[in-house]
């Protein structure tokens, strides 16, 4: 028997006050329905200033919907959101947000039917703080042909042009939807280098959605893993690397305490069913700063994903006669564990 549970001791919409301090983007308990499809269900998210922050998650988990909400392309059904302290649901505030934000869509779309130079000129006219020297620098670096029609550019070249017009407006926030998707490795590398360089040199904040975990690990400061329209894990990557651990628990073959529990109880405070009294006992003893993010149970073995005092959790199981090992969790594994289909 295999069971998967995603657990968090904080309620989905709950954020610590410290999370909000210095935040550029704050979304609180946002719901969005597209027809019969629920795109977001209680999404809460904070993005700190001056960081590269990644939204991770499987297709259809609500990443793009989240980015569109921030840009005022969609309105939430309920919940609130602010960017630069401005309300994203308010049309006037939304225009002000877009004045300070650059956006690169997944398809790297720009004005249709125009050439590179005209595209740049038209966008330049809308932004009084346009950085002409950066424009020249990026034009040279990206080797963009000014008279080439945008429609005739490769996806990589279109991505570079989209990044150029997003950056040269001196945006304080860049929102990038799958920025390196469909790009060859060289173009993706150049794009990442440009982004990292700009964040290092300016106060720029970058919020990107991506499937490319190795890129996120290389460049992002923080990440939120989304699943089914809500954030299941959120934090700085360094903190996640240091504090999230996979705890492998193995019971002796004749110990039936795990498998014998047919009726799930509920882990205290998490709202998640526990399939054994032992797990329930252990989670009841979790220190305050420790979250049980995920459990997978296979017969007499159990895998726990713990954020915080994993050693304390391990000791509790050892005290109950189990064999326990604690492992670091790469981002890729974390992503897969938290986003895999519910059994």
């Amino acid at each position: 028997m295999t069971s998967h549970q995603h657990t968090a001791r904080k309620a989905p919409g709950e954020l610590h006050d410290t999370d909000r301090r210095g935040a550029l983007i704050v979304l609180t308990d946002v719901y969005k329905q597209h027809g019969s499809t629920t795109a977001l269900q209680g999404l809460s998210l904070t993005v700190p200033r001056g960081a590269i922050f990644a939204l991770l998650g499987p297709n259809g988990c609500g990443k793009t919907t989240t980015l569109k909400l921030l840009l005022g392309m969609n309105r939430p059904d309920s919940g609130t959101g602010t960017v630069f302290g401005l309300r994203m649901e308010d049309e006037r505030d939304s225009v002000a947000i877009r004045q300070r934000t650059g956006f690169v869509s997944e398809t790297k779309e720009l004005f249709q039917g125009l050439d590179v130079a005209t595209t740049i000129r038209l966008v330049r006219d809308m932004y009084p703080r346009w950085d002409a020297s950066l424009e020249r620098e990026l034009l040279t670096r990206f080797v963009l042909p000014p008279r080439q029609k945008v429609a005739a550019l490769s996806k990589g070249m279109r991505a570079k042009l989209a990044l150029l017009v997003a950056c040269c407006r001196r945006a304080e926030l860049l929102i990038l939807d799958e920025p390196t998707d469909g790009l060859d490795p060289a173009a993706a590398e150049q794009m990442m280098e440009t982004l990292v360089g700009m964040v290092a040199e300016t106060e720029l904040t970058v919020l990107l959605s991506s499937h490319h975990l190795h890129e996120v690990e290389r460049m992002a400061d923080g990440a939120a893993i989304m699943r089914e329209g809500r954030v299941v894990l959120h934090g700085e990557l360094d903190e996640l690397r240091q504090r999230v651990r996979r705890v492998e628990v193995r019971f002796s073959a004749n110990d039936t305490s795990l498998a014998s529990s047919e009726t799930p109880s509920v882990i205290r405070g998490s709202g998640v069913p526990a399939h054994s009294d032992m797990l329930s006992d252990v989670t009841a003893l979790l220190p305050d700063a420790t979250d049980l993010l995920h459990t997978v149970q296979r017969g007499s073995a159990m895998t726990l994903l713990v954020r915080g005092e994993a050693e304390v959790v391990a000791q509790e199981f050892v005290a109950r006669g189990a064999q326990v090992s604690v492992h670091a969790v790469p981002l890729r594994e974390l992503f897969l564990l938290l986003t895999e289909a519910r059994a």
Partner: protein
Amino acid sequence: MWHRAWIETRWKVVLMLLVNGLIGALLIDDPASGAVWRQRFGTVLPMIFCVNGIVLAGSGVASQVSQKPGQTVHTSMLFLLSLPITRRRLVLVRQATGALAAMGVVLTTLIGYAVAAPELRAVVSPGIALAYVASVLPVVLVAYAVSALLATVLDQLWQTYAAMAVVGSVLGGVPPSRLWRVVVEAVSPLTSRQLTDIWTTIGVAGLVCILFSAMLSFTAVGVVQRKPF
């Protein structure tokens, strides 16, 4: 935004002028047949101008985004919506540019006909020509506005067909749309009484058409403002 909207529209305008020029060459190929001219200028040409307006309103919001929110399509709409412009302004600028382009096509075409065909100038007085233009333009404006509204909810193909069906079905029946036929029929010198009647009718019908077009445009703005992308 005006510049961008014009750049998006310009090739359609050029193409329409070329097509209208070819149509004009066919329409005015027989200088002797004044009755045929009247028939052509009274029915064929206004219909062509309306089709011009309907096509110019194409590539609207609905054809630029997926009908299923959340699905990604290759258009410039998301890029446009990411710019610091309200949707109201975005739609109104686009509609105003298209409406001006539609009227420009009408005027340029008719001026072109008059310049290219001296025999036409000989038959139609400047007053009648002006009344003809003044009676056609508001109807083209309505055709454009109907099409532009439909473009917010239908993709380009369906929008064009639906707009043609709507406009075509009313062209024959509504008094303002019959006006140009009256004008075209009145090629002989008009009495001042007839002229006053014609201009009064044109004025009232034109005002109604302009108000109706404005109402359709603001409805289109409302539709786009509520539309999820």
